[in-house]
């Protein structure tokens, strides 16, 4: 007799799966990674390899020996966490710090909650913030960009301040020498993944086109930052810089398109996503303008991650055939 399969309907499924989603995001990060290698050379490559390998190894060890559940290491999520973590730190970070950060990101940020899908906070950001408060000096000593064809692949990088750091210390006028075009192309200091806005945007467009991420979150973040900083720029252009600079400085593009859109830790409905994005935008600007740290995207996303369950509860989809009481 034939051994037919009995299952509940539907009997066909879309070909989408978690792995494909994760690998698409990884693919979208490749252009930015290439640019980073171009600017920071061997350091960028080494750092990425270390974080990715550590993240995968940590997840594998925990699944195998602590949880003793199924091994899902090939779903790509650990690779993604490692990649995003590397993107968020200075390229010349000591290797042992990167390892500690990766272990913390996966171990505490993700596996402690039960693995993929159960973590309330973006694991890469958890790792990053952990490193930021543990190794403040190393985490804020940014290498200056030095294209490999000029400096060579293995050259030590010269360190220097980031635009936002300068801004914090010396005010808006200190940035006068920096060109907007340089900012966009990545010719500036900063965490290695966030330097080139163009490369990140190419990846983001790919993700939006493949419907991996929803444009609602990044758009509302960017608009909020733009409007909010724009108001201050109009009030006093000598003290505050123009809003378009805010968009390309620091990790805003990376955060808005690749970190805030993490499915696990962001709201599900479009209205929820917009509120989430506005919240991130506001907190980012508040930290940038008045906080102790020059950059606040990571903190903003983590804070809003905590609100995600609440937002999900408050913004439920409209049920078919149920009339809102207020409409009557």
């Amino acid at each position, binding site marked *: *007799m034939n*051994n*037919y*399969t*009995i*299952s*509940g309907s539907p009997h066909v499924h879309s070909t989408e799966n978690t792995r494909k989603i994760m690998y698409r995001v990884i693919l979208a990060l490749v252009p930015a990674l290439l640019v980073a290698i171009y600017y920071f050379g061997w350091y960028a490559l080494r750092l990425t390899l270390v974080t990715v390998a550590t993240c995968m190894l940590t997840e594998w060890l925990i699944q195998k020996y602590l949880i003793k559940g199924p091994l899902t290491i090939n779903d790509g999520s650990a690779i993604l966490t490692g990649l995003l973590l590397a993107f968020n730190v200075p390229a010349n970070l000591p290797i042992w710090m990167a390892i500690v950060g990766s272990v913390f990101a996966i171990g505490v940020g993700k596996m402690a909650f039960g693995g993929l899908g159960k973590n309330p906070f973006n694991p890469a950001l958890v790792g990053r913030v952990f490193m930021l408060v543990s190794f403040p000096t190393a985490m804020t000593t940014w290498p200056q960009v030095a294209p490999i064809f000029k400096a060579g692949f293995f050259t030590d990088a010269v360190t220097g301040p980031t635009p936002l750091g300068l801004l914090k210390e010396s005010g808006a006028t200190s940035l006068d020498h920096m060109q907007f075009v340089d900012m966009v192309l990545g010719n500036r200091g900063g965490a290695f993944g966030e330097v080139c806005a163009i490369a990140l945007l190419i990846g983001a467009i790919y993700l939006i086109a493949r419907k991996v991420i929803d444009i609602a979150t990044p758009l509302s973040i960017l608009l909020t930052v733009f409007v909010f900083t724009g108001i201050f720029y109009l009030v006093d252009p000598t003290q505050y810089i123009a809003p378009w600079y805010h968009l390309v400085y620091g990790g805003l593009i990376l955060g808005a398109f690749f970190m805030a859109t993490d499915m696990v830790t962001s709201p599900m409905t479009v209205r929820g996503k917009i509120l989430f994005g506005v919240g991130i935008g506001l907190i980012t600007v508040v930290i940038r303008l008045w906080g102790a740290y020059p950059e606040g995207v990571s903190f903003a996303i983590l804070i809003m991650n905590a609100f995600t369950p609440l937002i999900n509860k408050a913004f439920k989809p409209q049920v078919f055939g149920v009339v809102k009481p207020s409409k009557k």
Partner: protein
Amino acid sequence: MSNTLLISLLVLGILGAVLAVVLYIVAQRFKVEENPLIDEAEACLPGANCGGCGFAGCRALAEACVKQAAEKGNIDGLACPGTDMGKVAAVLGLTATAFEPKIAVVRCNGSCQNSPAKVHYEGAEICAFANTLYAGKGGCSKGCLGLGDCVKKCNFGALHIDKETGLPVVDPDKCVGCGVCAKTCPRGIIEIRPRGKKDRRVYVCCSNTDKGALVIKNCSVGCIGCQKCLKECPFEAIEMRGNLAYIDPAKCKACGKCAKVCPRGAIHTVNFPAPKPQTEQPAEAPKVELEKPVTV
């Protein structure tokens, strides 16, 4: 420096003291008087809050017992299925009532070997759902689906699915006979039966009421309703429910004669002394001609 230390110590110390006083006053002011007997009665109960007694939990049952004992002077009708209520009665100063320990019995032996799989199930691991989808892997529409709804519901950890047979197994040491599993099973396969004298019991390990011909198709150990056991039983303890023999535990004296005549080995005896060497393989019963199915 020492000044700062002193001030902070003082401030926190005073704050702590003040709050302690406030807490004490509040605790005294809003104290709920409870009969200490409730605690004592609750201590006699298993504390698993299974709901088998019909109350929300063990404490609720204890409260009900204390209340009824005060009002009527007895605890009749209030019973935890897994505990000797005599202990509770003793705590409350009443005479003990008779207690008959019970146990859950899985009335299906349609294991992977006895009822080989004809289809492959790939859906939610819930019996109640699978029950709506198909008759079962082996084709028996009254048999165990093996997805373990009963295991998930058991508050005492007394059930587990045997990986070899794919059937739930009751751990006699842990089972208190609360009956949650029996209520959960969508096919009513699990029955709560008295443990019996010396923990010996006899039961029909099948729940299929279909005609014998249909049972034989899917299972090698299902009851076919041949009524041999019915005729064999000296105590008239066996009755037919559809095409399924049922042993009434109230009448059964656990002699085990029925098990010996069952051509399908569907009657199981528990805790009987090991059979003598001559009759070593009672389960491997000789193949008999299928008796004419009885229509009811």
